[in-house]
């Protein structure tokens, strides 16, 4: 079933990538740099965050005011920084989500690549709370809602004995300590773990792309800055806990699940979150990838030159001390737990040369799945059938979905498709071999579309090897107008592989030598419109979902009642006065006059409005020995009007009688917030309004 999801997803993703390829070109296609872009956005967040921190006051009274100062008085710098801080963190969520979706859709999360996927999942649990604590620090009405809802979520967990949400119901109880705690989490705690997590995430891969190309950095920074100036991030009103904001602009990138709390119990929300995370954690094994044979080192042909170790995209090859007593220092050793069997190592091996008519072709490192010798055989056998003067051999990546269809579509009297594992698997001497031994007149390396290599670096390494910028170089005698790399300019403009084959055939020099007839790289008319559209669409999407659609905390015309107190119920039986005789039997320092049981009874609470019960519950005492207070915390929505409110509590559980009651006509206007508290000193309930 997941396979179906992947195929369906690719149908959406492929056209998007093609569009972006048109505009940005494959070297700058943002979809090839999603992970790096996410990290880059975090850099923007970090830099702008430092500016905000300089002016931020970590206190109940100072937080809102200092952020307001930044936003309005210092709009040209502080305000822009604040907006950048928000929008870059929103943008990071978009690129992060796309990054995950893409790796999943193209099946790059399974097999020996599971480690990068699995270490990516906990990063979500760091990034999202980072955003949430950030919204909390601003201490506007949205922050109040975030604080209240977060506390309600956390209260559900059996960690705190007291309700944390209670701190956010009225001004008197809210303390500056909370801001110190949030500032610590937001500025130090979570970022520290995030940096460590990112390090772990890229640990196993070779040469991870940490930075996107400069052009993309500049483009996205400009897009975010323009958005920040045109549509600055604003606070949503000072907190007034006696009223409920009618509606809030919610940042859906970070607070997506919060609105669920309006109808769901916190348990369900936690269930959703942990369920999704678990699903993500096990995704690489749904189903597990059939492990192909790892690369094999042939020590007779390995002199320890380390090219394969340099080129392996998954860091699966290490150079270790020589084990066979030969006069070499090191040898390549493959870790089967990391090897993705892509064959890029064979492509890098200097001994993988097909120019061997009489001795066996056995490179120092080879893929048992498709050996260099077998490739050579196939090449020699099949090319025999080609006819004419415009024969073209297409090497196509076996694992890319396209390659299955390529053979039937392309092969004819003068075209032949050879499936290889990855473009990077083809040692450059094979291109030289095919052309110099007159097996063909032109060679096309199809590769993954857009150069977005299934095995990360195969397309890059191939392009560099062909351009003689990375070992092993393609020999100089190979005429460049006889070779086409499907993902590279100018060939990428030819559409699909059959277009590239046709274009190469068209441009093949007649005889030897001759000048290149490669389609000239004329100005790309798509560049400006597509890039402009993508940047604008991206900025609009970032700005839009960061405040819209608005969320209604309580429905129109309603008011909110919070029930919040703790009360120690009756002990399970009465205390008993010890007799003198009993006391005498005790050690002198333990002579308590009364014998009291520790355990308490549950309390029963009923809240009703105009006789209709709004809330009724029996709460058990807290504590291991059931000797603590029972906690009542409940947020309710009622019609906003004048009503007779009744609260009753029975301190010994079941009995229908109430030990404490309060009945009062209250005028509850729509949007008003009333808190029902229990005054421990007066031993009575209070309805607190403004």
């Amino acid at each position, binding site marked *: 079933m997941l396979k179906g999801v992947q195929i369906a997803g690719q149908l959406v993703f492929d056209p998007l990538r093609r569009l972006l390829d048109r505009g940005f070109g494959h070297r700058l296609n943002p979809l090839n740099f999603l992970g790096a872009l996410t990290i880059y956005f975090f850099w923007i967040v970090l830099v702008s965050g430092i500016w905000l921190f300089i002016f931020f006051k970590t206190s109940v009274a100072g937080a809102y005011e200092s952020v307001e100062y930044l936003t309005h008085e210092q709009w040209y710098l502080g305000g822009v920084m604040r907006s950048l801080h928000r929008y870059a963190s929103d943008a990071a969520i978009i690129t992060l989500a796309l990054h995950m979706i893409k790796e999943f859709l193209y099946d790059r999360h399974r097999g020996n690549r599971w480690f990068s996927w699995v270490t990516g999942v906990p990063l979500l649990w760091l990034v999202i709370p980072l955003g949430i604590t950030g919204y909390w620090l601003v201490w506007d009405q949205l922050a109040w809602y975030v604080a209240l809802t977060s506390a309600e979520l956390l209260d559900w967990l059996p960690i705190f004995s007291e309700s944390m949400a209670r701190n956010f119901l009225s001004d008197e109880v809210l303390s500056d300590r909370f801001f110190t705690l949030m500032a610590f989490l937001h500025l130090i705690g979570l970022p520290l773990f995030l940096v460590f997590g990112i390090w772990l995430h890229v640990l196993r891969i070779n040469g991870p792309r940490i930075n996107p190309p400069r052009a993309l950095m500049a483009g996205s920074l400009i897009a975010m800055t323009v958005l920040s100036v045109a549509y600055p991030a604003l606070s949503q009103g000072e907190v007034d806990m006696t009223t409920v904001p009618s509606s809030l602009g919610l940042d859906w990138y970070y607070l997506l699940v919060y609105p669920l709390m309006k109808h769901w119990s916190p348990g369900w929300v936690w269930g959703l979150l942990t369920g999704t995370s678990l699903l993500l954690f096990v995704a690489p094994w749904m189903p597990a990838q059939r492990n192909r044979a790892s690369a094999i080192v042939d020590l007779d042909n390995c002199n320890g030159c380390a090219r394969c170790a340099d080129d392996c995209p998954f860091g699966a090859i290490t150079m270790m001390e020589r084990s066979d007593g*030969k006069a070499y220092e090191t040898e390549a050793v493959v870790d089967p737990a990391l090897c993705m069997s892509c064959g890029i190592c064979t492509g890098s091996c200097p001994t993988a040369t097909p*120019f061997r*008519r009489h001795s066996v072709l056995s490179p120092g490192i080879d893929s048992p799945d498709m050996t260099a010798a077998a490739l050579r055989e196939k090449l020699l056998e099949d090319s025999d059938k080609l006819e004419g003067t415009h024969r073209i051999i297409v090497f196509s990546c076996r694992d890319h979905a396209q390659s299955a269809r390529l053979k039937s579509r392309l092969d004819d009297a003068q075209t032949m498709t050879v499936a290889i594992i990855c473009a990077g698997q083809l040692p450059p001497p094979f291109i030289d071999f095919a052309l110099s031994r007159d097996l063909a007149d032109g060679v096309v390396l199809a590769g993954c579309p857009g150069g977005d290599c299934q095995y990360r670096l195969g397309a890059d390494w191939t392009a560099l090897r062909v351009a003689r910028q990375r070992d092993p*170089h393609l020999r100089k005698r190979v005429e460049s107008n006889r070779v086409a790399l499907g993902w590279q300019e100018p060939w990428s403009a030819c559409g699909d592989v059959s277009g590239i084959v046709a274009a190469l055939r068209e441009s093949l020099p007649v005889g030897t030598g001759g000048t290149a007839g490669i389609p000239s790289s004329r100005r790309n008319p798509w560049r400006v419109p597509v890039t402009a559209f993508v940047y604008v669409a991206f900025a609009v999407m970032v700005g839009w979902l960061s405040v819209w659609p608005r969320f209604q905390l309580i429905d129109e015309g309603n008011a909110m009642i919070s029930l919040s107190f703790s009360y120690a119920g009756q002990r399970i039986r009465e205390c008993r006065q010890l007799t003198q005789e009993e006391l005498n039997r005790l050690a002198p320092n333990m002579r308590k006059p009364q014998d009291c049981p520790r355990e308490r009874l549950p309390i029963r609470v009923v809240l009703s409005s105009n006789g209709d019960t709004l809330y009724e519950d029996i709460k058990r005492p807290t504590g291991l020995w059931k000797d603590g207070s029972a906690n009542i915390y409940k947020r309710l929505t009622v019609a906003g009007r004048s009503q007779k409110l009744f609260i009753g509590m029975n301190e010994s559980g079941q009995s229908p009688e109430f030990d404490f009651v309060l009945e009062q006509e209250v005028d509850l206007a729509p949007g008003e917030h009333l808190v029902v508290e229990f005054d421990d000193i007066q031993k009575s309930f209070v309805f607190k309004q403004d």
Partner: protein
Amino acid sequence: MPLLQWKSAYSLGIPSVDHEHRELIGMINEVYDHMEDAADPVAIESCLEDIYASIASHFALEERHMREARYTEYDAHKDEHENLLDQLLEMMDEFADDPQSGRETLRKSLADWFGIHFATFDARLHESLGDHHG
């Protein structure tokens, strides 16, 4: 007497590279022996192909050591390696096309092809690396 001879003065002090130099000298001498014997072209061709594979990986190894030692003339040396590979392929092609004239070319240039590189580029490398490695 063999055509090329190994001298301990050639040593770079890197056992693997020295070992391969010796092997390559042996292989080139072998081709000459075959040519003297007027052996069948297949044997010579097969030797050349082995030399090509061996020298390609030898250069790769030498380049690794040069990079690790931060050898200052790396780029020039590397370019020369690439040229030598191009030249060897040319000689091989010529021999395959026409064994008679190809044999003449080989006789004239094969020793120089490797010998000159050895005497110039590798000697410079020796000066730079040899001492440090004893």
